[in-house]
């Protein structure tokens, strides 16, 4: 009896806002006119939505194109000078033309590489814990802490490291100290992106591995992480890109030098953001301004290259179809 009533329900549904519909049924003409009208309205909505969407897209492109255009226009010719990729800024004063950026490029890569070396394992292992193992209050606390950490301003992270490294332990400011601050900024990015990627791995794959008598940790390493590999690489690169341009920790923890300096642990340390900052100080001089734009373009290119490399790695490691 109830089944019979249930089955009649869909036919009896009254269309809201249409009082002409007789209760219990409609003629086919009513249905057609109802269908024609919304069609026109939908076409109008479609056009409006399209316009809004394209306008938003164009608007978002304006600053991007503007920045890229300005930096390329003002910095490109610096990159074609003979010493840019080989030399440093030693004995080059603000009003001298040229010099190289190699010291800063090497410094930035070294510092960021070192940061990644610490932050990536911690970040990935944290994400593995949160997705594959963590239950209950500990996991919730860690997850909450990662949220807080991702909201910490870079200058606060830098001040924290300064308080620990310099004030408490009495150690010197160095590239390494700046790396530690960058680690704090990079970990939450890596954790969050890796977490999302691990959650995307279908549970069926884990079960398939368990059912073959594969221990859980092997399943996580060889099946889950392997399946999520390309996504994790992308996340790591986002994290690296994020810290590559960070300047506040460098200002506080890693004073700039114009020389080659490959020792991360002692003394001043050259980096691209600090080189930009240095030349910004003498912006009124055309020679310094040119160097500043050149260093800015170099930094953008580094980030871009990193993304490209990441895409290549991700492509070769991705799920095969």
């Amino acid at each position, binding site marked *: 009896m109830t089944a019979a009533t249930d089955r009649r329900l869909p036919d009896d549904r009254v269309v809201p806002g249409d009082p002409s519909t007789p209760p219990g049924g409609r003629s086919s003409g009513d249905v057609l006119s109802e269908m024609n009208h919304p069609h026109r309205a939908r076409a109008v909505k479609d056009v409006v939505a399209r316009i809004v969407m394209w306008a938003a897209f164009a608007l978002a492109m304006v600053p991007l194109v503007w920045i890229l255009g300005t930096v390329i226009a003002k910095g490109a010719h610096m990159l074609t000078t003979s010493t840019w990729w080989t030399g440093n800024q030693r004995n080059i004063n603000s009003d001298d033309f040229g010099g190289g950026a190699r010291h800063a490029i090497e410094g930035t890569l070294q510092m960021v590489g070192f940061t990644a070396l610490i932050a990536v394992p911690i970040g990935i292992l944290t994400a593995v814990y949160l997705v594959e193992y963590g239950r209950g209050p500990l996991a919730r606390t860690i997850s909450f802490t990662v949220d807080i950490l991702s909201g910490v301003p870079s200058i606060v992270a830098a001040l924290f490291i300064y308080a620990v490294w310099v004030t408490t332990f009495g150690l010197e400011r160095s590239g390494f100290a700046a790396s530690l601050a960058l680690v704090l900024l990079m970990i939450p990015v890596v954790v969050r992106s890796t977490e999302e990627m691990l959650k995307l791995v279908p549970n069926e794959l884990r079960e398939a591995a368990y059912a073959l008598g594969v221990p859980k940790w*092997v399943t996580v390493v060889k099946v889950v992480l392997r399946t999520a590999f390309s996504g994790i690489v992308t996340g790591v690169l986002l994290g690296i890109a994020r810290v590559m341009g960070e300047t506040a920790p460098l200002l506080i923890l890693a004073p700039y030098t114009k020389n080659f300096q490959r020792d991360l642990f002692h003394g001043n340390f050259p980096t691209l953001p600090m080189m930009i900052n240095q030349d910004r100080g003498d912006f009124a001089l055309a020679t310094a301004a040119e160097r500043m734009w050149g260093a800015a373009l170099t930094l953008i290119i580094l980030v871009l290259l990193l993304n490209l490399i990441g895409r290549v790695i991700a492509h070769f490691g991705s799920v095969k179809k």
Partner: protein
Amino acid sequence: MAKRIDVSDLNVYYGSFKAVEGVSMTVEPRSVTAFIGPSGCGKSTFLRTLNRMHEVIPGGRVEGKVMLDDQDLYASSMDPVTVRRTVGMVFQRPNPFPTMSIYDNVAAGLRLNGVKNKKTLDGIVEQSLHGANLWNEVKDRLNKPGAGLSGGQQQRLCIARAIAVQPQVLLMDEPCSALDPISTLAIEDLVNELKSEFTIVIVTHNMQQAARVSDRTAFFNLKATGEPGRLVEIGDTTRIFNNPSERATEDYISGRFG
């Protein structure tokens, strides 16, 4: 190779919710036992307790006894990983590892457990693919991704993967429900061949399938909505389908409910 399963008075829980109550049954070696019953009556849940896959789900736990010949699967000294090596499983939806080739999928169970010898692997992969009636279709593209096969081929790949670790028992959780009739037939033929070597338990919603492939059939049902599922009766398939001893079984099989 094949082993007998003896279940006595098994209760299965999800947290505090009792999903299956008081199941006792014997699964005979070298035969096919089919589980039938309406959706949500605990067939799959019960099946997953036979290789300790149920406890993978948070809150999943079991009371009672499951014996595999003379081994107690739920003894405190028993490692669930060992149990799953002995009792293999094929799932409802084909789930080959998407990052692996056909060869790697079949070899996965062995490789992930540390077998590295290329000769041994080659032999077992070929033998397992033969065993799953898939060899002739894939022998020329063993290095192609497993996910590129058709659904029916993927399911046979999963069966090959499961038998490659040489289990005693093979559990199949509605293995044909995502497949077309031709692929279903291929799997059913395969089940018939595999039962000479393995003890097979198959959950199915398709009663014709149960009648076609199984030697014994177990009918599960809910006492009432919200109550735990239970085993109504188990017996030779011909008897269950022709002359069931319970009214509920007869109603279900003849289509009067469910």
